[in-house]
Protein backbone atom coordinates (compact mmCIF):
# COMPACT_ATOMS: atom_id res chain seq x y z
CA UNK A 1 0.00 0.00 0.00
CA UNK A 2 1.55 3.28 -1.05
CA UNK A 3 0.59 6.29 0.96
CA UNK A 4 0.55 9.87 -0.25
CA UNK A 5 0.94 11.36 3.18
CA UNK A 6 2.72 9.77 6.09
CA UNK A 7 3.53 10.76 9.65
CA UNK A 8 6.36 8.82 11.30
CA UNK A 9 6.72 8.81 15.09
CA UNK A 10 5.40 12.33 15.42
CA UNK A 11 5.28 13.93 18.84
CA UNK A 12 3.92 17.33 19.82
CA UNK A 13 4.43 18.83 23.24
CA UNK A 14 2.79 21.99 24.61
CA UNK A 15 4.70 23.10 27.67
CA UNK A 16 4.44 20.10 29.97
CA UNK A 17 1.55 18.45 28.15
CA UNK A 18 2.34 15.71 25.67
CA UNK A 19 -0.41 16.22 23.10
CA UNK A 20 0.83 13.60 20.64
CA UNK A 21 3.38 10.85 21.25
CA UNK A 22 4.96 8.61 18.62
CA UNK A 23 2.04 8.93 16.27
CA UNK A 24 2.46 7.18 12.92
CA UNK A 25 -0.26 7.26 10.31
CA UNK A 26 -0.18 6.62 6.59
CA UNK A 27 -2.83 8.05 4.35
CA UNK A 28 -3.26 6.71 0.82
CA UNK A 29 -5.14 8.35 -2.02
CA UNK A 30 -8.62 7.13 -2.91
CA UNK A 31 -9.24 5.69 0.52
CA UNK A 32 -11.02 6.89 3.63
CA UNK A 33 -8.73 6.82 6.62
CA UNK A 34 -10.61 7.26 9.87
CA UNK A 35 -9.07 8.63 13.02
CA UNK A 36 -11.23 7.75 15.97
CA UNK A 37 -10.82 9.33 19.33
CA UNK A 38 -12.80 10.63 22.26
CA UNK A 39 -12.63 14.23 23.49
CA UNK A 40 -9.09 15.08 24.53
CA UNK A 41 -7.57 12.19 22.61
CA UNK A 42 -5.41 14.55 20.59
CA UNK A 43 -7.53 14.75 17.45
CA UNK A 44 -7.33 18.56 17.18
CA UNK A 45 -3.55 18.55 17.59
CA UNK A 46 -3.23 15.84 14.97
CA UNK A 47 -5.37 17.87 12.54
CA UNK A 48 -3.23 20.93 13.15
CA UNK A 49 -0.02 19.00 12.53
CA UNK A 50 -1.45 17.47 9.35
CA UNK A 51 -2.75 20.80 8.04
CA UNK A 52 0.47 22.70 8.69
CA UNK A 53 -0.78 24.88 11.56
CA UNK A 54 1.59 23.23 14.07
CA UNK A 55 5.03 21.82 13.39
CA UNK A 56 5.80 18.47 14.97
CA UNK A 57 8.41 18.56 17.75
CA UNK A 58 9.69 15.11 16.83
CA UNK A 59 9.18 12.75 13.94
CA UNK A 60 8.77 13.11 10.21
CA UNK A 61 6.10 14.40 7.87
CA UNK A 62 6.39 12.70 4.46
CA UNK A 63 4.65 13.41 1.18
CA UNK A 64 5.20 10.76 -1.47
CA UNK A 65 8.03 9.46 0.69
CA UNK A 66 9.90 12.77 0.88
CA UNK A 67 10.20 14.72 4.13
CA UNK A 68 8.51 18.12 4.17
CA UNK A 69 8.38 20.99 6.65
CA UNK A 70 5.31 23.15 6.34
CA UNK A 71 5.57 26.66 7.71
CA UNK A 72 1.90 27.52 7.20
CA UNK A 73 -1.45 25.99 6.21
CA UNK A 74 -1.02 27.70 2.86
CA UNK A 75 2.09 25.60 2.13
CA UNK A 76 0.27 22.42 3.08
CA UNK A 77 -2.54 23.49 0.79
CA UNK A 78 -0.09 23.95 -2.06
CA UNK A 79 0.99 20.33 -1.54
CA UNK A 80 -2.62 19.22 -1.84
CA UNK A 81 -3.39 18.89 1.87
CA UNK A 82 -6.72 20.64 2.44
CA UNK A 83 -8.55 20.85 5.73
CA UNK A 84 -12.24 21.48 6.25
CA UNK A 85 -12.71 22.67 9.81
CA UNK A 86 -15.91 22.47 11.77
CA UNK A 87 -16.73 26.11 11.10
CA UNK A 88 -16.22 25.32 7.37
CA UNK A 89 -14.70 28.77 6.78
CA UNK A 90 -17.87 29.82 5.03
CA UNK A 91 -19.60 33.17 5.36
CA UNK A 92 -23.32 32.44 5.85
CA UNK A 93 -24.47 35.77 4.43
CA UNK A 94 -22.39 35.48 1.26
CA UNK A 95 -23.71 33.71 -1.81
CA UNK A 96 -22.59 30.20 -2.66
CA UNK A 97 -20.44 31.25 -5.60
CA UNK A 98 -18.79 34.08 -3.67
CA UNK A 99 -17.94 31.67 -0.86
CA UNK A 100 -16.66 29.06 -3.25
CA UNK A 101 -14.14 31.36 -4.90
CA UNK A 102 -13.26 33.55 -1.91
CA UNK A 103 -9.49 34.08 -1.95
CA UNK A 104 -9.18 32.25 -5.28
CA UNK A 105 -11.34 34.41 -7.52
CA UNK A 106 -11.14 33.98 -11.27
CA UNK A 107 -10.58 37.42 -12.68
CA UNK A 108 -9.03 39.48 -15.41
CA UNK A 109 -7.44 42.66 -14.14
CA UNK A 110 -9.37 42.44 -10.89
CA UNK A 111 -12.81 42.11 -12.52
CA UNK A 112 -14.31 38.80 -11.52
CA UNK A 113 -15.48 36.43 -14.22
CA UNK A 114 -18.83 36.06 -12.53
CA UNK A 115 -20.67 33.98 -15.12
CA UNK A 116 -17.77 31.56 -15.41
CA UNK A 117 -17.48 31.22 -11.64
CA UNK A 118 -21.19 30.55 -11.28
CA UNK A 119 -21.01 27.89 -13.98
CA UNK A 120 -18.08 26.16 -12.27
CA UNK A 121 -19.87 26.15 -8.91
CA UNK A 122 -22.96 24.64 -10.53
CA UNK A 123 -20.85 21.90 -12.13
CA UNK A 124 -18.85 21.15 -9.01
CA UNK A 125 -21.93 20.95 -6.81
CA UNK A 126 -23.52 18.75 -9.45
CA UNK A 127 -20.57 16.35 -9.08
CA UNK A 128 -21.41 16.18 -5.37
CA UNK A 129 -24.97 15.31 -6.25
CA UNK A 130 -26.50 18.69 -5.45
CA UNK A 131 -28.38 20.40 -8.21
CA UNK A 132 -28.28 24.10 -7.56
CA UNK A 133 -30.63 26.27 -9.51
CA UNK A 134 -29.51 29.46 -7.85
CA UNK A 135 -25.86 29.86 -6.86
CA UNK A 136 -26.69 33.43 -5.79
CA UNK A 137 -28.41 32.29 -2.64
CA UNK A 138 -26.69 32.82 0.68
CA UNK A 139 -24.82 29.86 2.12
CA UNK A 140 -26.81 30.45 5.31
CA UNK A 141 -29.91 29.16 3.51
CA UNK A 142 -28.30 25.75 2.96
CA UNK A 143 -28.64 22.85 5.35
CA UNK A 144 -25.67 21.79 7.47
CA UNK A 145 -24.93 18.88 5.15
CA UNK A 146 -25.06 21.07 2.07
CA UNK A 147 -22.68 23.56 3.66
CA UNK A 148 -20.24 20.69 4.20
CA UNK A 149 -20.70 19.82 0.55
CA UNK A 150 -19.79 23.37 -0.50
CA UNK A 151 -16.65 23.30 1.64
CA UNK A 152 -15.66 19.84 0.37
CA UNK A 153 -16.36 20.69 -3.27
CA UNK A 154 -14.31 23.86 -2.91
CA UNK A 155 -11.33 21.97 -1.45
CA UNK A 156 -11.42 19.34 -4.20
CA UNK A 157 -11.83 21.90 -6.96
CA UNK A 158 -8.78 23.81 -5.78
CA UNK A 159 -6.60 20.73 -6.00
CA UNK A 160 -6.90 18.80 -2.75
CA UNK A 161 -5.28 15.37 -2.93
CA UNK A 162 -5.82 14.72 0.74
CA UNK A 163 -8.94 16.11 2.36
CA UNK A 164 -8.95 16.34 6.15
CA UNK A 165 -12.44 16.53 7.62
CA UNK A 166 -12.73 17.64 11.23
CA UNK A 167 -15.81 16.03 12.81
CA UNK A 168 -17.93 16.64 9.71
CA UNK A 169 -20.94 14.75 11.05
CA UNK A 170 -20.88 15.63 14.73
CA UNK A 171 -23.18 18.65 14.58
CA UNK A 172 -25.68 17.03 12.23
CA UNK A 173 -28.86 14.99 12.59
CA UNK A 174 -29.01 11.39 11.43
CA UNK A 175 -30.30 12.18 7.95
CA UNK A 176 -27.88 15.03 7.29
CA UNK A 177 -24.98 12.94 8.61
CA UNK A 178 -25.94 10.27 6.10
CA UNK A 179 -25.79 12.87 3.33
CA UNK A 180 -22.29 13.92 4.41
CA UNK A 181 -21.12 10.29 4.55
CA UNK A 182 -22.26 9.94 0.96
CA UNK A 183 -20.13 12.98 0.02
CA UNK A 184 -17.17 11.32 1.71
CA UNK A 185 -17.68 8.15 -0.34
CA UNK A 186 -17.98 10.24 -3.52
CA UNK A 187 -14.80 12.14 -2.70
CA UNK A 188 -12.92 8.85 -2.31
CA UNK A 189 -14.23 7.66 -5.65
CA UNK A 190 -12.79 10.76 -7.28
CA UNK A 191 -9.33 9.64 -6.16
CA UNK A 192 -8.97 11.94 -3.19
CA UNK A 193 -7.63 10.56 0.06
CA UNK A 194 -9.99 11.41 2.92
CA UNK A 195 -8.94 11.75 6.53
CA UNK A 196 -12.17 11.40 8.48
CA UNK A 197 -11.69 12.54 12.06
CA UNK A 198 -14.56 11.63 14.32
CA UNK A 199 -15.62 10.34 17.70
CA UNK A 200 -18.45 8.35 16.15
CA UNK A 201 -17.41 4.76 15.27
CA UNK A 202 -20.77 4.11 13.59
CA UNK A 203 -20.21 6.86 11.05
CA UNK A 204 -16.57 5.86 10.55
CA UNK A 205 -17.39 2.21 9.97
CA UNK A 206 -19.89 3.02 7.21
CA UNK A 207 -17.34 4.71 4.93
CA UNK A 208 -13.86 3.92 6.32
CA UNK A 209 -11.20 1.70 4.75
CA UNK A 210 -8.86 1.79 7.69
CA UNK A 211 -9.21 2.96 11.28
CA UNK A 212 -6.74 4.47 13.70
CA UNK A 213 -7.69 4.60 17.35
CA UNK A 214 -6.27 7.62 19.09
CA UNK A 215 -6.26 7.83 22.86
CA UNK A 216 -4.39 10.17 25.20
CA UNK A 217 -2.15 11.31 22.35
CA UNK A 218 -1.13 7.87 21.19
CA UNK A 219 -2.24 5.53 18.43
CA UNK A 220 -3.60 2.50 20.26
CA UNK A 221 -4.45 0.36 17.32
CA UNK A 222 -4.94 0.25 13.59
CA UNK A 223 -7.50 -1.86 11.74
CA UNK A 224 -8.38 -2.60 8.15
CA UNK A 225 -12.07 -2.64 7.38
CA UNK A 226 -11.89 -6.33 6.39
CA UNK A 227 -10.43 -7.40 9.71
CA UNK A 228 -12.59 -5.58 12.20
CA UNK A 229 -16.20 -5.59 13.27
CA UNK A 230 -18.09 -2.52 14.37
CA UNK A 231 -18.52 -3.88 17.89
CA UNK A 232 -14.80 -4.14 18.31
CA UNK A 233 -14.30 -0.53 17.19
CA UNK A 234 -16.91 0.69 19.63
CA UNK A 235 -15.41 -1.36 22.43
CA UNK A 236 -11.89 -0.12 21.82
CA UNK A 237 -12.96 3.45 21.36
CA UNK A 238 -14.89 3.69 24.53
CA UNK A 239 -12.00 2.41 26.52
CA UNK A 240 -12.89 -1.29 26.28
CA UNK A 241 -12.17 -2.72 29.68
CA UNK A 242 -13.22 0.49 31.40
CA UNK A 243 -16.65 0.33 29.81
CA UNK A 244 -17.10 -3.32 30.80
CA UNK A 245 -16.28 -2.43 34.34
CA UNK A 246 -18.77 0.43 34.19
CA UNK A 247 -21.38 -1.99 32.88
CA UNK A 248 -20.75 -4.28 35.85
CA UNK A 249 -20.98 -1.44 38.30
CA UNK A 250 -24.25 -0.27 36.80
CA UNK A 251 -25.59 -3.81 36.96
CA UNK A 252 -24.85 -3.91 40.67
CA UNK A 253 -26.80 -0.71 41.22
CA UNK A 254 -29.89 -2.02 39.47
Amino acid at each position, binding site marked *: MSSYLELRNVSKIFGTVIALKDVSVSIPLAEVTCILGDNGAGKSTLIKVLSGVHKADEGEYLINGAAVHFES*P*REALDSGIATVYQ*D*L*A*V*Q*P*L*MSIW*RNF*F*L*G*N*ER*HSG*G*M*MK*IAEQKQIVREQMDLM*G*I*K*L*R*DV*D*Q*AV*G*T*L*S*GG*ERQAVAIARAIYFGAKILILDEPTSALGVKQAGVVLRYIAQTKQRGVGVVFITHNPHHAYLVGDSFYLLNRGQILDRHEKANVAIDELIREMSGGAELEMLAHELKDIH
Partner: protein
Amino acid sequence: MTISNDERVVQRSFVRKVLGRPELGAALGTILVWVTFAIIAGSVFIGVDGIRNYTAVAADIGVLAVAVALLMIAGEFDLSVGSTIAATGMVTALLSIQYGINLWLSLFISALFAVCIGLFNGWLTVSTGLPSFIVTLGMMFGLAGLTIGVTRLITNRTQLGGLQDTPGYTSAVKFFGSKIDGFSVTVIWWVLLVVIASVVLTRRRFGNWIFGTGGNLDGARNLGVPTSRVRISLFVGTALASWLVSTTQLITFSGTDVLRGTGKEFEAIIAAVIGGCLLTGGFGSVVGAALGALLFGMVKQGIIFAQIDSDWYKFFLGVMLVSAVLINNSFRKRVVGSSK
Protein backbone atom coordinates in the same frame (compact mmCIF):
# COMPACT_ATOMS: atom_id res chain seq x y z
CA MET B 1 -40.78 13.38 -11.49
CA THR B 2 -40.05 17.02 -12.15
CA ILE B 3 -36.83 18.50 -10.99
CA SER B 4 -38.55 20.69 -8.42
CA ASN B 5 -39.65 17.59 -6.52
CA ASP B 6 -36.08 16.49 -5.96
CA GLU B 7 -35.40 17.19 -2.29
CA ARG B 8 -31.81 18.10 -3.04
CA VAL B 9 -32.71 20.83 -5.48
CA VAL B 10 -32.30 24.08 -3.64
CA GLN B 11 -34.35 26.91 -5.03
CA ARG B 12 -35.56 30.32 -4.21
CA SER B 13 -38.45 32.25 -5.58
CA PHE B 14 -38.22 35.71 -7.09
CA VAL B 15 -40.05 37.21 -4.11
CA ARG B 16 -37.62 35.73 -1.62
CA LYS B 17 -34.78 37.06 -3.73
CA VAL B 18 -36.16 40.59 -3.57
CA LEU B 19 -36.85 40.30 0.16
CA GLY B 20 -33.24 39.27 0.67
CA ARG B 21 -31.83 42.44 -0.87
CA PRO B 22 -30.05 44.71 1.62
CA GLU B 23 -31.49 47.81 -0.07
CA LEU B 24 -35.12 46.88 0.54
CA GLY B 25 -35.67 48.78 3.81
CA ALA B 26 -34.10 51.96 2.46
CA ALA B 27 -36.02 51.71 -0.83
CA LEU B 28 -39.37 51.32 0.94
CA GLY B 29 -38.45 54.09 3.38
CA THR B 30 -37.49 56.46 0.57
CA ILE B 31 -40.80 55.89 -1.20
CA LEU B 32 -42.75 56.32 2.03
CA VAL B 33 -40.96 59.54 2.98
CA TRP B 34 -41.29 60.95 -0.52
CA VAL B 35 -45.03 60.26 -0.60
CA THR B 36 -45.48 61.72 2.89
CA PHE B 37 -43.76 64.99 2.07
CA ALA B 38 -45.28 65.12 -1.40
CA ILE B 39 -48.68 65.16 0.31
CA ILE B 40 -47.78 67.55 3.16
CA ALA B 41 -45.49 69.98 1.32
CA GLY B 42 -46.79 69.55 -2.21
CA SER B 43 -45.18 71.04 -5.30
CA VAL B 44 -42.24 72.76 -3.55
CA PHE B 45 -41.02 69.32 -2.54
CA ILE B 46 -41.97 67.44 -5.71
CA GLY B 47 -40.65 70.05 -8.16
CA VAL B 48 -37.13 70.37 -9.49
CA ASP B 49 -36.22 73.02 -6.92
CA GLY B 50 -37.11 70.61 -4.17
CA ILE B 51 -35.02 67.88 -5.77
CA ARG B 52 -32.05 70.26 -6.10
CA ASN B 53 -32.45 71.15 -2.47
CA TYR B 54 -32.59 67.74 -0.87
CA THR B 55 -30.05 66.09 -3.17
CA ALA B 56 -27.50 68.76 -2.14
CA VAL B 57 -28.01 67.75 1.49
CA ALA B 58 -28.07 64.04 0.62
CA ALA B 59 -24.86 64.27 -1.43
CA ASP B 60 -22.74 65.41 1.54
CA ILE B 61 -23.92 62.50 3.66
CA GLY B 62 -23.95 60.22 0.63
CA VAL B 63 -20.26 60.65 -0.22
CA LEU B 64 -19.40 59.68 3.36
CA ALA B 65 -21.97 56.88 3.51
CA VAL B 66 -20.51 55.16 0.43
CA ALA B 67 -17.07 54.86 2.03
CA VAL B 68 -18.47 54.09 5.47
CA ALA B 69 -20.67 51.33 4.01
CA LEU B 70 -17.69 49.58 2.40
CA LEU B 71 -15.80 49.77 5.68
CA MET B 72 -18.77 48.45 7.65
CA ILE B 73 -19.24 45.54 5.26
CA ALA B 74 -15.59 44.68 5.97
CA GLY B 75 -16.58 44.62 9.65
CA GLU B 76 -15.07 47.90 10.88
CA PHE B 77 -16.24 51.33 12.06
CA ASP B 78 -14.88 54.80 11.51
CA LEU B 79 -16.04 57.32 14.09
CA SER B 80 -13.34 59.82 13.14
CA VAL B 81 -15.09 60.93 9.92
CA GLY B 82 -16.37 64.20 11.40
CA SER B 83 -13.04 65.08 12.97
CA THR B 84 -11.26 64.29 9.72
CA ILE B 85 -13.58 66.73 7.93
CA ALA B 86 -12.67 69.47 10.40
CA ALA B 87 -8.96 68.67 10.35
CA THR B 88 -8.47 68.34 6.59
CA GLY B 89 -10.56 71.46 5.92
CA MET B 90 -8.49 73.39 8.41
CA VAL B 91 -5.21 72.13 6.90
CA THR B 92 -6.29 73.38 3.48
CA ALA B 93 -7.55 76.69 4.90
CA LEU B 94 -4.43 77.34 6.97
CA LEU B 95 -2.08 76.62 4.09
CA SER B 96 -3.94 78.77 1.59
CA ILE B 97 -5.47 81.55 3.70
CA GLN B 98 -2.74 81.94 6.32
CA TYR B 99 0.31 81.13 4.19
CA GLY B 100 -0.98 82.00 0.70
CA ILE B 101 -0.15 78.63 -0.87
CA ASN B 102 -1.94 77.79 -4.13
CA LEU B 103 -5.24 76.14 -3.25
CA TRP B 104 -4.58 73.09 -5.43
CA LEU B 105 -1.32 72.39 -3.64
CA SER B 106 -3.03 72.86 -0.27
CA LEU B 107 -5.73 70.43 -1.33
CA PHE B 108 -3.11 67.89 -2.36
CA ILE B 109 -1.36 68.22 1.00
CA SER B 110 -4.60 67.90 3.00
CA ALA B 111 -5.51 64.82 0.92
CA LEU B 112 -2.16 63.29 1.88
CA PHE B 113 -2.95 64.20 5.47
CA ALA B 114 -6.28 62.34 5.14
CA VAL B 115 -4.48 59.30 3.75
CA CYS B 116 -2.19 59.34 6.80
CA ILE B 117 -5.20 59.47 9.16
CA GLY B 118 -6.74 56.49 7.35
CA LEU B 119 -3.48 54.55 7.36
CA PHE B 120 -3.04 55.21 11.07
CA ASN B 121 -6.60 54.12 11.93
CA GLY B 122 -6.19 51.00 9.80
CA TRP B 123 -2.72 50.13 10.98
CA LEU B 124 -3.62 50.53 14.66
CA THR B 125 -6.80 48.46 14.28
CA VAL B 126 -5.14 45.68 12.33
CA SER B 127 -1.92 45.44 14.32
CA THR B 128 -3.36 45.69 17.84
CA GLY B 129 -6.58 43.79 17.25
CA LEU B 130 -8.45 46.50 19.19
CA PRO B 131 -12.02 47.14 18.04
CA SER B 132 -11.99 49.91 15.43
CA PHE B 133 -14.81 51.49 17.42
CA ILE B 134 -12.28 52.31 20.16
CA VAL B 135 -9.41 53.19 17.84
CA THR B 136 -11.45 55.65 15.79
CA LEU B 137 -13.25 57.01 18.86
CA GLY B 138 -9.80 57.95 20.13
CA MET B 139 -9.01 59.47 16.75
CA MET B 140 -12.32 61.37 16.79
CA PHE B 141 -11.46 63.18 20.03
CA GLY B 142 -7.71 63.37 19.54
CA LEU B 143 -7.96 64.87 16.08
CA ALA B 144 -10.73 67.30 17.08
CA GLY B 145 -8.61 68.59 19.95
CA LEU B 146 -5.54 68.83 17.76
CA THR B 147 -7.46 70.82 15.15
CA ILE B 148 -8.75 73.34 17.68
CA GLY B 149 -5.41 73.60 19.49
CA VAL B 150 -3.22 74.06 16.43
CA THR B 151 -5.63 76.46 14.72
CA ARG B 152 -5.85 78.72 17.78
CA LEU B 153 -2.08 78.54 18.26
CA ILE B 154 -1.40 79.72 14.72
CA THR B 155 -4.27 82.13 14.06
CA ASN B 156 -5.63 82.89 17.54
CA ARG B 157 -9.09 82.17 16.07
CA THR B 158 -11.26 79.10 15.52
CA GLN B 159 -12.56 79.99 12.10
CA LEU B 160 -10.99 81.11 8.88
CA GLY B 161 -12.58 82.92 5.95
CA GLY B 162 -11.55 84.65 2.76
CA LEU B 163 -10.63 81.62 0.71
CA GLN B 164 -12.00 83.33 -2.41
CA ASP B 165 -8.89 85.55 -2.55
CA THR B 166 -6.41 82.67 -2.65
CA PRO B 167 -4.65 81.60 -5.86
CA GLY B 168 -6.30 78.64 -7.57
CA TYR B 169 -9.73 79.32 -6.05
CA THR B 170 -11.56 80.12 -9.28
CA SER B 171 -10.52 76.85 -10.94
CA ALA B 172 -11.14 74.80 -7.78
CA VAL B 173 -14.65 76.18 -7.47
CA LYS B 174 -15.59 74.50 -10.74
CA PHE B 175 -14.84 71.07 -9.28
CA PHE B 176 -15.87 71.49 -5.67
CA GLY B 177 -18.19 74.43 -5.25
CA SER B 178 -20.22 75.06 -8.39
CA LYS B 179 -23.78 74.32 -9.37
CA ILE B 180 -24.66 72.52 -12.58
CA ASP B 181 -28.16 73.27 -13.79
CA GLY B 182 -28.94 74.19 -10.21
CA PHE B 183 -27.66 70.93 -8.82
CA SER B 184 -24.76 70.94 -6.38
CA VAL B 185 -21.55 69.59 -7.94
CA THR B 186 -21.25 67.30 -4.91
CA VAL B 187 -24.21 65.37 -6.30
CA ILE B 188 -22.04 64.43 -9.30
CA TRP B 189 -19.21 63.31 -7.02
CA TRP B 190 -21.72 61.29 -5.04
CA VAL B 191 -23.25 59.53 -8.04
CA LEU B 192 -19.77 58.85 -9.43
CA LEU B 193 -18.61 57.32 -6.13
CA VAL B 194 -21.76 55.21 -5.81
CA VAL B 195 -21.19 53.75 -9.27
CA ILE B 196 -17.49 53.07 -8.70
CA ALA B 197 -17.92 51.64 -5.21
CA SER B 198 -20.84 49.52 -6.30
CA VAL B 199 -18.84 48.00 -9.15
CA VAL B 200 -15.91 47.37 -6.82
CA LEU B 201 -18.12 45.71 -4.22
CA THR B 202 -20.22 43.52 -6.48
CA ARG B 203 -18.01 42.78 -9.47
CA ARG B 204 -14.38 43.10 -8.50
CA ARG B 205 -12.23 40.60 -6.64
CA PHE B 206 -11.55 43.25 -4.00
CA GLY B 207 -15.30 43.42 -3.33
CA ASN B 208 -15.43 39.71 -2.66
CA TRP B 209 -12.58 40.20 -0.22
CA ILE B 210 -14.54 42.98 1.54
CA PHE B 211 -17.51 40.67 2.10
CA GLY B 212 -15.23 37.82 3.18
CA THR B 213 -13.24 39.95 5.61
CA GLY B 214 -16.37 41.21 7.31
CA GLY B 215 -18.19 37.89 7.32
CA ASN B 216 -15.51 35.69 8.85
CA LEU B 217 -12.14 37.32 9.38
CA ASP B 218 -10.13 34.22 10.29
CA GLY B 219 -11.85 32.09 7.68
CA ALA B 220 -11.10 34.64 4.97
CA ARG B 221 -7.48 34.94 6.08
CA ASN B 222 -7.07 31.15 5.96
CA LEU B 223 -8.38 31.19 2.40
CA GLY B 224 -5.64 33.64 1.42
CA VAL B 225 -7.59 36.92 1.50
CA PRO B 226 -5.27 39.83 2.46
CA THR B 227 -7.64 40.95 5.22
CA SER B 228 -5.29 43.56 6.70
CA ARG B 229 -4.71 45.25 3.36
CA VAL B 230 -8.46 45.25 2.69
CA ARG B 231 -9.28 46.93 6.00
CA ILE B 232 -6.47 49.48 5.87
CA SER B 233 -7.43 50.56 2.33
CA LEU B 234 -11.04 51.04 3.41
CA PHE B 235 -9.98 53.22 6.35
CA VAL B 236 -8.05 55.33 3.85
CA GLY B 237 -11.26 55.38 1.79
CA THR B 238 -13.36 56.88 4.60
CA ALA B 239 -10.65 59.44 5.34
CA LEU B 240 -10.51 60.50 1.69
CA ALA B 241 -14.31 60.72 1.51
CA SER B 242 -14.13 63.02 4.54
CA TRP B 243 -11.51 65.10 2.73
CA LEU B 244 -13.82 65.40 -0.30
CA VAL B 245 -16.76 66.56 1.83
CA SER B 246 -14.58 69.02 3.74
CA THR B 247 -13.23 70.35 0.46
CA THR B 248 -16.68 70.93 -1.08
CA GLN B 249 -17.86 72.69 2.08
CA LEU B 250 -14.70 74.74 2.46
CA ILE B 251 -14.88 75.98 -1.12
CA THR B 252 -18.65 76.50 -1.16
CA PHE B 253 -18.51 78.64 2.00
CA SER B 254 -15.01 79.98 1.13
CA GLY B 255 -13.96 79.29 4.70
CA THR B 256 -14.18 76.81 7.53
CA ASP B 257 -14.25 76.45 11.29
CA VAL B 258 -12.80 73.92 13.70
CA LEU B 259 -16.17 72.29 14.41
CA ARG B 260 -17.10 71.65 10.77
CA GLY B 261 -18.25 68.06 10.25
CA THR B 262 -19.16 67.37 13.88
CA GLY B 263 -21.63 64.49 14.05
CA LYS B 264 -21.20 63.55 10.39
CA GLU B 265 -19.78 60.15 11.36
CA PHE B 266 -23.11 59.18 12.89
CA GLU B 267 -25.11 60.47 9.94
CA ALA B 268 -22.96 58.38 7.60
CA ILE B 269 -23.29 55.27 9.77
CA ILE B 270 -27.06 55.79 10.06
CA ALA B 271 -27.37 56.10 6.27
CA ALA B 272 -25.32 52.92 5.80
CA VAL B 273 -27.36 51.02 8.39
CA ILE B 274 -30.69 52.19 6.93
CA GLY B 275 -29.25 51.03 3.61
CA GLY B 276 -28.91 47.49 4.94
CA CYS B 277 -25.34 47.31 6.23
CA LEU B 278 -24.98 44.98 9.19
CA LEU B 279 -23.20 46.36 12.25
CA THR B 280 -21.40 43.04 12.48
CA GLY B 281 -20.12 43.20 8.90
CA GLY B 282 -20.30 40.81 5.97
CA PHE B 283 -23.52 42.17 4.53
CA GLY B 284 -24.65 45.39 2.93
CA SER B 285 -24.80 47.45 -0.22
CA VAL B 286 -23.47 50.72 -1.60
CA VAL B 287 -26.74 51.50 -3.39
CA GLY B 288 -28.58 50.92 -0.12
CA ALA B 289 -26.31 53.35 1.69
CA ALA B 290 -26.92 55.89 -1.08
CA LEU B 291 -30.68 55.46 -0.63
CA GLY B 292 -30.17 55.89 3.10
CA ALA B 293 -28.43 59.20 2.43
CA LEU B 294 -31.22 60.27 0.05
CA LEU B 295 -33.76 59.46 2.75
CA PHE B 296 -31.74 61.60 5.11
CA GLY B 297 -31.77 64.57 2.72
CA MET B 298 -35.50 64.23 2.05
CA VAL B 299 -36.41 64.22 5.73
CA LYS B 300 -34.03 67.05 6.62
CA GLN B 301 -35.32 69.37 3.86
CA GLY B 302 -38.85 67.96 3.68
CA ILE B 303 -39.47 69.10 7.23
CA ILE B 304 -38.49 72.62 6.25
CA PHE B 305 -40.66 72.55 3.11
CA ALA B 306 -43.58 71.22 5.12
CA GLN B 307 -43.04 74.09 7.57
CA ILE B 308 -42.75 71.69 10.46
CA ASP B 309 -40.58 72.94 13.27
CA SER B 310 -37.09 71.57 12.51
CA ASP B 311 -36.82 70.60 16.16
CA TRP B 312 -38.61 67.44 15.09
CA TYR B 313 -35.93 66.40 12.61
CA LYS B 314 -33.89 64.33 15.04
CA PHE B 315 -37.03 62.62 16.31
CA PHE B 316 -37.94 61.55 12.76
CA LEU B 317 -34.37 60.40 12.22
CA GLY B 318 -34.44 58.13 15.26
CA VAL B 319 -37.78 56.62 14.27
CA MET B 320 -36.56 56.12 10.69
CA LEU B 321 -33.36 54.42 11.77
CA VAL B 322 -34.99 51.92 14.06
CA SER B 323 -37.86 51.10 11.71
CA ALA B 324 -35.58 50.65 8.69
CA VAL B 325 -33.34 48.31 10.65
CA LEU B 326 -36.34 46.36 11.94
CA ILE B 327 -37.61 45.94 8.38
CA ASN B 328 -34.17 44.88 7.13
CA ASN B 329 -33.72 42.42 9.98
CA SER B 330 -37.06 40.70 9.66
CA PHE B 331 -36.68 40.25 5.91
CA ARG B 332 -33.15 39.00 6.21
CA LYS B 333 -34.15 36.50 8.86
CA ARG B 334 -36.94 35.23 6.67
CA VAL B 335 -34.58 34.74 3.76
CA VAL B 336 -31.25 33.81 5.25
CA GLY B 337 -31.99 32.58 8.74
CA SER B 338 -34.48 29.97 7.62
CA SER B 339 -32.07 27.10 7.52
CA LYS B 340 -33.90 23.89 6.71
